[in-house]
């Protein structure tokens, strides 16, 4: 059972994807049932594994493809963080997507690729070595493309092309990096397995320069999905996708896959201590800091809600890379916990943006005036998400910033504090005007395009409740941060296992 559980987790979405593709378009109820059952089942399976890992159980599945190249699915504390995030948010996004796409064409195709996308994310989370990681990383690119171009308009096809150019290019660079790793350093395949405290520290010093080069090749490959400047161009363009897709791309699947990959490379391939000695962490930290500031500056200039959120993602995801570069347990906790915190906060914000667009036809920030009175719950959720991103306590974002800040000081990189604070202020600069428009401006003209009239609730229940749920999570993750079952405590566990051999 312990060997097959990771396979089952992967299979829940993979089989669902196949079944949905086979199922004709008109079987709506069956498809919904299938989707939700799979999502719930996966959460249960992940929960079982989380409990097991807390008690030091190993879950590993291994299949030798070629001599020296294994397909490994393994659950460790870090993979469970990502798998937990994906499985929970998958459930909410599925519910949201059902409401969002009600009556739209091609839903079978949409949900099929949606499941495939989550299957790839699960694979990335559970990948036990670089090779397995690479396979699912590429699969993710292929499964998200149909979602980005789902609407089939000229604009979305163009965005899809850009998306493919960037991500396939990044995938190719990553492939080169992995190949270099297997060819030059690790002919046996044992060192590219992800292991706590890393595997490369024993490499003789003549090869250190090679290792540093390979490190940056890997980062360049992963950095496209993680939207590191200057590789971030695809992200704002991909905003033409439907809201649940944007939510998923931004909060969980694509950008997180990149960030998660960076964390994996630093912690589980190189080992943070060894990477620190190699001197590769400081350049990456500087690059991440530039991304954080640049993304915020660009977000300030945007006039569309989703575009602004997109640049905010560029900025926020780099917190994870930044945290991974801070040598010391507190910084590690900050980076890893932000993987989860950013996910729940950003998904909330995108759900809200989708609600405004679907319910009232609002796409531009200037049209949001007085939306707070019309859609109070959505607007409260947006406000919580926005304040969380700024880093105002007691929301999740504060916890991340607090740990990143203290971690930076512990690592002797006090300039990072300046980056964090400047970023917080820029975040305030582009989020507070929206919050102000929601609550403090009053509505003078009719809504741009009101689709869903105010009924018992402000909008369709399937759109509203996932939004509320993720907003509650963003609040709870910060409010109960010190609780034993909080994301923070789980990240501390990961950090302990990384630093205490």
């Amino acid at each position, binding site marked *: 059972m312990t060997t097959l559980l990771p396979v089952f987790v992967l299979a829940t979405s993979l089989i669902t994807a196949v079944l949905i593709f086979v199922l004709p378009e008109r079987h709506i109820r069956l498809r919904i049932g299938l989707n939700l059952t799979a999502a719930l089942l996966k959460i249960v399976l992940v929960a079982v594994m989380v409990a097991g890992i807390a008690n030091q159980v190993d879950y590993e599945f291994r299949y030798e493809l070629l001599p020296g190249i294994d397909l490994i699915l393994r659950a460790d504390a870090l993979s469970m963080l990502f798998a937990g995030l994906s499985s929970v948010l998958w459930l909410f996004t599925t519910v949201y997507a059902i409401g969002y796409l009600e009556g739209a064409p091609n839903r079978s195709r949409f949900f099929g690729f949606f499941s495939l996308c989550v299957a790839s994310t699960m694979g990335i989370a559970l990948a036990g070595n670089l090779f397995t990681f690479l396979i699912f990383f590429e699969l993710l690119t292929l499964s998200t493309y149909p979602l980005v171009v789902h609407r089939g308009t000229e604009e979305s096809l163009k965005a899809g092309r850009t998306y493919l150019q960037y991500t396939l290019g990044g995938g190719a660079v990553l492939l080169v990096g992995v190949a270099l790793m297997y060819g030059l350093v690790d002919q046996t395949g044992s060192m590219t397995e992800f292991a706590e405290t890393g595997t490369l520290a024993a490499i003789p010093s003549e090869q250190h320069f090679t290792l540093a080069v390979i490190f940056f090749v890997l980062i360049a490959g992963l950095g496209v999905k993680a939207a590191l400047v200057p590789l971030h161009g695809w992200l704002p363009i991909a905003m033409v996708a439907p809201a649940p897709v944007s939510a998923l791309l931004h909060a969980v699947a694509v950008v997180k896959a990149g960030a998660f990959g960076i964390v994996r490379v630093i912690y589980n391939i190189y080992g943070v201590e060894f990477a620190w000695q190699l001197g590769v962490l400081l350049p990456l930290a500087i690059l991440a800091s530039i991304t954080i500031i640049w993304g915020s500056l660009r977000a300030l200039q945007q006039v569309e809600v989703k575009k602004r959120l997109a640049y905010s993602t560029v900025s926020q995801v780099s917190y994870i890379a930044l945290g991974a570069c801070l040598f010391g347990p507190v910084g590690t*906790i900050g980076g890893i916990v932000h993987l989860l915190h950013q996910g729940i906060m950003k998904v909330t914000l995108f759900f809200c943006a989708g609600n405004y667009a679907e319910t009232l036809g609002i796409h531009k920030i200037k049209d949001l005036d007085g939306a707070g009175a019309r859609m109070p719950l959505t607007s409260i959720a947006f406000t919580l998400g926005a304040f969380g991103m700024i880093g*105002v306590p*007691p929301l999740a974002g504060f916890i991340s910033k607090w740990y990143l800040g*203290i971690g930076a000081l512990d690592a002797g990189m006090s300039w990072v504090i300046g980056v964090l604070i400047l970023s917080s202020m820029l975040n305030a*600069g582009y989020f507070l005007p929206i919050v102000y428009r929601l609550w403090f401006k009053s509505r003078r003209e009719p809504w741009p395009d009101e689709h869903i009239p105010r009924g018992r609730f402000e909008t369709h229940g399937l759109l509203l409740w996932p939004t509320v749920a993720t907003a509650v999570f963003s609040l709870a993750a910060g*409010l109960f*941060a*010190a609780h034993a079952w909080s994301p923070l405590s789980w990240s501390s566990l990961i950090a302990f296992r990384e630093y205490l051999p």
Partner: protein
Amino acid sequence: MTLLMYLLHQVPLPLLVIFPLVLVAFVHTNTVRRRGWMLIAAPIPMLLALLLWYGYGQPEFVTEVPWLMLGLHWRIDPALAPILLMTTLLWTAAGTYVWQQLRSGGAEEPHIARYLRCWLLTLTGNIGLLVAGDIASFYTLFALMTFAAFGLVIHTQTKNALFAGKVYIVLAVVGEGLLLSGLIWGAAHAAAGELTPTAPLLTHLPGAIAASAQGVWIALLLFLGFGVKAGLAGLHWWLPLAHPVAPTPASAVLSGAMIKAGLVGWLLTLPLGEFAAGGNFASIASLAVILGLVGAFGAAIMGVFAKKAKAVLAYSSVSQMGMITVMLGTGWLYDAAWEAVFAAIVVFSVHHGFNKGVLFFGVGWVGALSGRAATLILVLLLIPALNLIGVPFSSGEYAKDLFKAVIADLPVGLLYPIFSAGALATTALMLRYFYLLRKT
């Protein structure tokens, strides 16, 4: 009485703080007229608990909830309890003022429900931060107060109010940024590489800052960060803009209670007293004295040219806070005298809170009344005005004498006469205040 005793020991502090927050959920546009009592009721539980606590000889009163935030630790700090008492009383009084307004037609104003919600949120933050003992929850409540007060400042939605709101929020965000960096930096030293707790108690901060090699910079960040709230000269711009445009009761709490939150932040986090021994912080302490003097007299000069009574009062608050800053700086320089200075600061801020509150209410009363009643109010308003000036037998004289008695023995040179001359500044401002009140 044993029941009361039991209650005092069993009711955890968070419940008292959360109570106004719960009330927020019950504010609704249609029922605002009948919900004015909430504003009066909101601070009452804390007030009662505080009075009971005094009545039972100030027992140790601590609530710890280790799984909330980064470990909640809330207590009634005996040294700051007078400020807490002043704050709760002022909020109750101001709440009564709003209640009265709502009964006499104020409920028809636009955005009144939003105003009430922001009021309760600000109140939660203001009262809560005075009992918060750990850094994380202190900063949480401080931020809640800061952001919620925006709704009070811009309530009237006039052009001036919106401009004041903009200045307020920009300064507030800058202040929060300075504050957060100072707190993180200090906490990193206080935690000293330990994983838990990463958000130590506020009481650990001064020692950690004093022990740190960059302590001066950390202290400067905190000093400036809290300075935005405390109306420090140079960071005070929001005060004279916000007070004239905010509704009268909101100005009263803004100037009487909220401004003291910045001071409390200073008192809790800065390395004062024994931690300043050795003169490591002499540079910032001198800066505090200088900025305090600039505030105390500069605000008076600006204030006498102000066109509105409430703006005069705002400048008066900057001026009074300047005097408190001078006191703080002096006590910081002469660490042996700190305990006496601390007592003087607490007395001074309680005295200022009450009297300034009443003067703000006065603006509203005089505006609402006419004829003989207005004259009567004007005469009665002389009492808080004379108090602020510090004429003999007033609370102002008592507060200032506490401080003067301390510095009389210190080699402060000209500071003694200059500080005493502060009364002239206050007198000028009070004359202007009455002049403007009579004109209306």
